[in-house]
């Protein structure tokens, strides 16, 4: 045990002594969190919109005002030329063209029904779907506003004429866990995972490779230290670092982003403790596999790239192709992202996260065993 602590302490000194590394290690997570949470977003807001209003009536202007006020749309330009609108769409200046036909107001007044046209740039398929959903709901909301005002004035003169004979289902929509549809509240708990993973794995992957390059690994190999002790000693400092990073990240998440923390933080740290063993063991495995630091960085970069993209951090697991969903079960990042979001956003308890947690535990055991096996004391 004392041997492990000595070597671990040496690693800590390495990190603390090198001011640049220390700054990197402590400042990077905060920067990552600030930049990623703002850049890595599929939030659909300020959609540049071109308005072609042929009607120019008070009702059509009202509709445009609703679009403007919603926050989802930004009116880029307005004219009565469909050609100009189309060009703007082709150039990419506008993402949506809203066309209001000549008889919008008159047909609304006469028949109660009026068409509008939406041309959406569907290059970004999912964005287009959401733009459409927002636009439709604004139109529907405006229609019921008109309905209410029309009926309000009608009732003064004559019998209120709500459709007595036509029973309706009163549909209400409710968004759980994220009523404000705040994308950052969704992203930040996931990015926390990315930041405890990236730094720790990169550093641990470089670690043994560096000792190899410097030749100091030979010295360690001739000590009475066992392979298990060696790996444990290498793992411990980065594990501590990961936990500190998580704590820093959580503070930033709460203070800067106001992310709700509905579940137990103790549970989150417990899951992180197990997850970090798995993530760092992968780093150490790579490190004892390769010969140089450069290779270590390349291979880690490659592995992390695949792990992060397939973790459901950026795009939902549920949207992935079925076989990818199966493969991603082999991805520890995925399970911890799930746990982090479940605990922080949904307030999940131990029973709710049991499955991903047990998977992570199994991962930790297997990867640790692999890392120990891969590290041999023989000279290369």
């Amino acid at each position, binding site marked *: 045990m004392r041997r492990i602590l000595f070597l671990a302490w040496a690693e800590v000194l390495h990190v603390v002594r090198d001011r640049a590394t220390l700054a990197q290690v402590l400042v990077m997570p905060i920067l990552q969190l600030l930049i990623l949470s703002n850049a890595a977003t599929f939030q659909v807001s*300020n959609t540049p919109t071109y308005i072609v209003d042929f009607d120019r009536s008070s009702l059509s202007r009202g509709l445009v005002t609703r679009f403007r006020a919603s926050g989802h749309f930004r009116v880029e330009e307005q004219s009565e030329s469909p050609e100009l609108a189309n060009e703007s769409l082709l150039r990419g200046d506008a993402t949506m063209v809203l066309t209001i036909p000549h008889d919008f107001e008159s047909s609304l007044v006469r028949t109660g029904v009026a068409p509008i046209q939406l041309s959406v740039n569907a*290059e970004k*398929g999912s964005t287009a779907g959401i733009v459409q959903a927002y636009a439709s709901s604004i139109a529907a909301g405006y*229609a019921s506003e008109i309905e209410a005002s029309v009926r309000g004035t009608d009732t003064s003169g004559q019998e209120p004429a709500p459709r007595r004979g036509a029973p309706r289902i009163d549909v209400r929509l409710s968004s759980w866990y994220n009523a404000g549809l705040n994308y950052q509240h969704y992203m930040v708990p996931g990015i926390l995972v990315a930041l405890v993973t990236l730094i720790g794995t990169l550093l641990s992957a470089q670690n043994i490779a560096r000792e190899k390059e410097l030749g100091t690994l030979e010295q360690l190999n001739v000590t009475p230290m066992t392979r298990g002790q060696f790996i444990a000693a290498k793992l411990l400092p980065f594990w501590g670092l990961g936990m500190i990073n998580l704590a820093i990240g959580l503070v930033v998440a709460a203070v800067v982003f106001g992310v709700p923390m509905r579940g137990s933080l103790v549970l989150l740290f417990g899951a992180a403790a197990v997850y970090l063993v798995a993530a760092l063991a992968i780093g150490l495995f790579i490190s004892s596999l390769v010969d140089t630091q450069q290779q270590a960085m390349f291979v880690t970069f490659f592995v992390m790239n695949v792990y992060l993209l397939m973790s459901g951090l950026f*795009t*939902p697991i549920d949207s992935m192709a079925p076989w990818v969903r199966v493969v991603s079960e082999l991805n520890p990042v995925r399970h911890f992202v799930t746990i982090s979001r479940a605990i922080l956003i949904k307030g*999940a308890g131990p029973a709710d996260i049991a499955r991903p947690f047990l998977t992570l535990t199994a991962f930790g055991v297997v990867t640790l065993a692999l890392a120990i096996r891969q590290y041999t004391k023989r000279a290369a």
Partner: protein
Amino acid sequence: MNALLGLLRKEVYHILRDRRTLVVIVALPVLQVIIFGYAIRTDVDHVRLAIVDPAPDSVTLAIRARFGAARVFETVAVVPRVEQLETLFRRSTAQGAVVFEAGFADRLARGLPTGLLIIADATEPNTGSIVAAYANAVVQGYEQETMPPSTAVRIVPSVRMRFNPTRESSNLFVPGLMAFVLTIISSLMTAISLTREKETGTMEALLVSPLRPWQIILGKVAPYLVVGFASVAGVILEARLVFHVPLRGSLTLLLVEGLLFILVSLSLGILISARTSSQRVAMMGALVGTMLPTMLLSGFIFPIESMPWPLRAISVVVPARWFVLVARSIMLKGVGLSYLWRPSLVLLVMAVVLLTASTRAFHERLDG
């Protein structure tokens, strides 16, 4: 000329000898296409639906049947009480829920207000919105078919999805992926390969050789150019064969713009190597200076319009942003230079400025 060929051959050996790095360079683009095609999607289908039906009757059963028939929904649980939903949502067993009021058919028949609550797990806001919209559409469809038409005021939007009517996500990522692969190879590999010569001290030997500076740069850079072009060709081919991504515009224009972008990336790589002295620093520089911006701020994955203004402002100087815009427009919209002259001009200016800067940086080193 002979000397240049010698340098070229040496560089090719370098690339071929480091197997692990080579595998990463070759395998990464191929794997990226697969990952982006199958994993980086935001389509919402197979929504796991829970139904809360305290007292099933003819109407609730009919609506439930409609949900069962809708292809996007998959009913995973039918429970009698709302409280039971919490666990289903927390474990992500359900993504959405439909809650019927007790005595549904009865209230409806008597003309009383009859409540139906649609709950969506909005942890991921976009999926939440779409799930709610889908569920709402199913209920509306039932209403329209079984009840007398409403006299309420309606504004009926007719929607045209332009350029990508089927809303395939894979159509979108290929142009971005090209930019990404070109950045890795042109910037990162060039920066590392030039810095390696410095680190090992062999750069001095090259500099005193009869090779002219441009020949040194060409010799170092050309092999990576070949690898880069091969990777991009592979990406396009794979995208066409596996995902049937269209190429509506001119291939020549696309290649010319691609060449412009490669020049920009190479210049960046040379610049980075001129400013750094160790491979590790060069690598971090290339990673932070070129790859991350290409990934995050080019509109490749995440829409730029939704970002706060400081990030939008930074994205203007990211070359990949302009290349992605151009490549996407050529491939998906099939437009020509008349629409693309602005971003093309930006790329051209960037290429000229960076090339000048990088040759100067290289010369300075020569003098120092």
